[in-house]
């Protein structure tokens, strides 16, 4: 389908893109050159702010109104794309360059049937007429792997699951058989197992049709598994590019090396190394810090109930990290909130340091707050935007009337030091800090009352991978220093491997297996665990490591 091109299909030369803001233009892409050969899959990897999405949008002619190409050229085959009129772009978009956007939840028109949305991609280019388009759309949906495509085509987006919607978007992207497909984080909003199926299908489709792909992703694992060539971007520039195996085996740029190091999934866990120093915390014979027995939580749903947590039992030893892993809806966050006594269980018991806290209220409930703390997934929302950091960290001290204002400030400074932030941060406000810094502040706040247990609810899922690696290291370090126990909630087995002593796998509210981390990774007992493990992106990373 790619014609008789001999040279590269897509060529970007010294591209510079900036966004107009109230405070003047901000450069997002600062002189990027790259090329994609016909049928080649090129992955652009970078963290948020690296300019990778801007680059993708510039290539597809989809820059928002504030975005501007300041310099450079983009050519597709023989055609120059920079400076095309809006009318001319319309014959390129969809027809020559297809797009698979990120976040399938919002990328489809909610009031139009999905079949019609696929059909539109054909009719606007005159590839089908009103009569033939619906049938072609069903074929395309089936090609994209949507089961029962004829029936699904008549449904609206909200009636489909996230994975199905992503398949609809793929069908739209490939509808007009474009020469180049720009896939912008096509699966990062999906659960790992679904992500793998969809990427597999996309792989098959483009390999069969010889379509070239520009894959934009923050996930080095996904890029490594799927691409022929890697382009690593940082701060609007390309810092390294080359064939996947070469880059992985011998990264030249320090930034690439750092990305590789912090990529989850291949390094032995921090917890593992600490374990080697002594015995496993759970084997010391002391009574456990937390003991959960047969915990059940039901939520009313329609006329019946849904069991979010269904008979879960486990223990957490002092100084141990227990991770609960599961995909969305598995009940892992609800379990965490029950352990912290922030929600009422339907049945079952929770013992904290030998005391039954399942139903505690009032004074006893408040006492529990001193000993068990929570770190949230989203560091942007968990800090009151109006307070300086000193106040945020000292809030637990204030709540329990510990010390006076001066000593609380001193304690806040000390805590900041422990999470490796400078004292100057004390007087800043949350909005002035980066995501990683905010999460450190949240950790400092959790440590203020020297708790025994800290529940971490997806503490790094909102962070870039190298920042997330640093935060995980910090958590491990604090554990070694203070003998904290962690209940670590995550959807990401790879992250869990870095930090947990033991791992529990949750699905539909049930604990499927619970074992030492290395055991789970080396010899998973349950099929679902094996499925989860297989879905971890970055196999090639591991091979080359």
């Amino acid at each position, binding site marked *: 389908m790619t014609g008789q091109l001999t040279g590269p299909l897509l060529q970007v030369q010294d591209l510079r893109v900036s966004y107009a803001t109230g405070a003047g233009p901000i450069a997002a892409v600062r002189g990027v050159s790259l090329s994609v050969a016909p049928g080649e899959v090129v992955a652009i990897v970078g963290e948020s702010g690296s300019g990778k999405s801007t680059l993708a949008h510039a290539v597809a002619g989809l820059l928002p109104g504030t975005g501007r190409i300041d310099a450079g050229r983009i050519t597709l085959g023989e055609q120059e794309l920079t400076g095309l009129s809006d009318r001319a772009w319309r014959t390129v978009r969809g027809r020559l360059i297809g797009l698979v956007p990120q976040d399938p939840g919002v990328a489809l028109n909610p009031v139009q049937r999905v079949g019609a949305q696929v059909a539109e991609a054909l009719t606007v280019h005159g590839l089908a007429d009103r009569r033939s388009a619906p049938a072609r759309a069903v074929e395309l949906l089936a090609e994209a792997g949507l089961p029962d495509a004829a029936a699904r085509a008549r449904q609206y987006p909200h009636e489909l699951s996230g994975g199905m919607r992503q398949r609809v978007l793929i069908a739209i992207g490939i509808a007009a058989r474009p020469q180049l497909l720009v896939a912008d984080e096509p699966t990062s909003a999906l659960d790992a197992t679904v992500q793998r199926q969809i990427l597999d299908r996309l792989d098959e489709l483009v390999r069969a049709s010889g379509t070239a792909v520009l894959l934009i992703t923050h996930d080095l694992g996904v890029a490594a598994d799927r691409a022929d060539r890697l382009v690593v971007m940082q701060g609007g520039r390309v810092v390294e590019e080359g064939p996947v195996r070469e880059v992985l085996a011998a990264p030249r740029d320090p930034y690439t090396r750092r990305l590789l190091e912090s990529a989850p999934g291949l390094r032995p866990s921090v917890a593992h190394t600490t374990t080697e120093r002594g015995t496993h915390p759970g084997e010391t014979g002391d009574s456990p810090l937390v003991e959960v027995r047969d915990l059940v939580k039901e939520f009313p749903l329609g006329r019946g109930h849904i069991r979010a947590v269904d008979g879960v039992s486990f223990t957490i030893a002092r100084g141990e990290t227990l991770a609960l892993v599961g995909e969305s809806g598995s009940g892992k966050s609800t379990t965490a909130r029950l352990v912290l006594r922030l929600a009422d269980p339907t049945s079952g018991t929770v013992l904290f340091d030998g005391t039954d806290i399942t139903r505690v209220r009032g004074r006893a409930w408040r006492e529990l707050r001193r000993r068990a703390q929570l770190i*949230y997934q989203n560091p942007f929302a968990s800090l009151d935007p109006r307070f300086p950091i000193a106040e945020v960290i000292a809030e637990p001290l204030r709540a329990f009337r510990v010390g006076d204002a001066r000593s609380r400030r001193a304690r806040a400074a000390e805590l900041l030091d422990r999470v490796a932030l400078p004292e100057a941060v004390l007087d800043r406000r949350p909005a002035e800090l980066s995501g990683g810094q905010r999460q450190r502040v949240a950790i400092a706040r*959790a440590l203020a009352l020297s708790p025994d247990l800290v529940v971490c609810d997806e503490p790094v899922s909102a962070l870039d991978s190298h920042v997330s690696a640093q935060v995980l290291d910090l958590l491990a370090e604090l554990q070694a220093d203070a003998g904290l126990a962690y209940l670590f909630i995550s959807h990401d087995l790879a992250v869990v491997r870095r930090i947990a002593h033991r791992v529990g796998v949750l699905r539909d509210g049930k604990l499927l297996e619970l074992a030492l981390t290395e055991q789970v990774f080396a010899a998973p007992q349950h099929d679902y665990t094996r499925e989860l493990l297989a879905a971890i992106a970055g196999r090639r990373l591991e091979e080359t490591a």
Partner: protein
Amino acid sequence: MTEVLIREPVVTAEADEAPPPREGRLRFVMRRPGLVLSLLYVALVVVAAFAPHVLAPGDPAAGVPALRLQPPGAAGLFGTDYLGRDVYTRVVHGASLSLQATLIAVSVALVVGGLVGVLAGFVRGWVDEVLMRFVDVLLAVPAVLLSLALITALGYGTVKVAIAVGVASVASFARVMRAETLRVRQSGYVEAARSVGTRWHVTLVRHVLPNAAGPVLVLAVLEFGLAILAVSSLSFLGYGAPPPAPEWGSLVAEGRNYMAVAWWLCAVPGAAIAATVLAVNRISRALDGERRR
């Protein structure tokens, strides 16, 4: 440890992580000429309301019959009315009653609506249900009709008109305050405060109220404009202060009888109302925009 800090500077340069650049308050204002004009005009209206003699030393009730219905120009900036009274002086002095009524109306709406909203949003449960059904009813009757019903019961006069207008806008304040309280209540930092053991009343005062107040205060400024319109409408219909006390709405009503011969009698006080509302709305927009930055 220092290595960590180098990787994450306090203010990062990357587009997604960097906080928006902050603009000085004065510079923010000076770069918007419309806003400057609005602020100046509102300042002028406030002076007119509290010290009218500074702007118009004459007596608003004293007329010179020989100089009746003179067009703007020699006989005064905005001409004279049917009794030979200076229109400019009457409009300046009219600001006082009109603005007082507006202030009362907004205060009533803000205080009552705010309390209802906080109560509903923070306590939830049946309290929320009952209060919000009540608010629904207030919303079901157009504000003007609600005000008119209250005037029927309370009687005429500037203060009564003001209360009637204020009560009629309680509903919108209650809704916004409740929505904001709910939003803040469910935010991560309020749950975080709860989970570190902060008591509920401390949480309410320290976290919920200050964070919920912003949009409500912006609404109050916006409501100021609406209240001026509502108060002057009721005054135009004749429910405000009895003549000869000047009120912007009633000035327009008086001028109506002389429209064919003296256009300025209607045009000038009406324009004063319109300009005030426009200025207040411009300021409210700036506050709203600034808050979102």
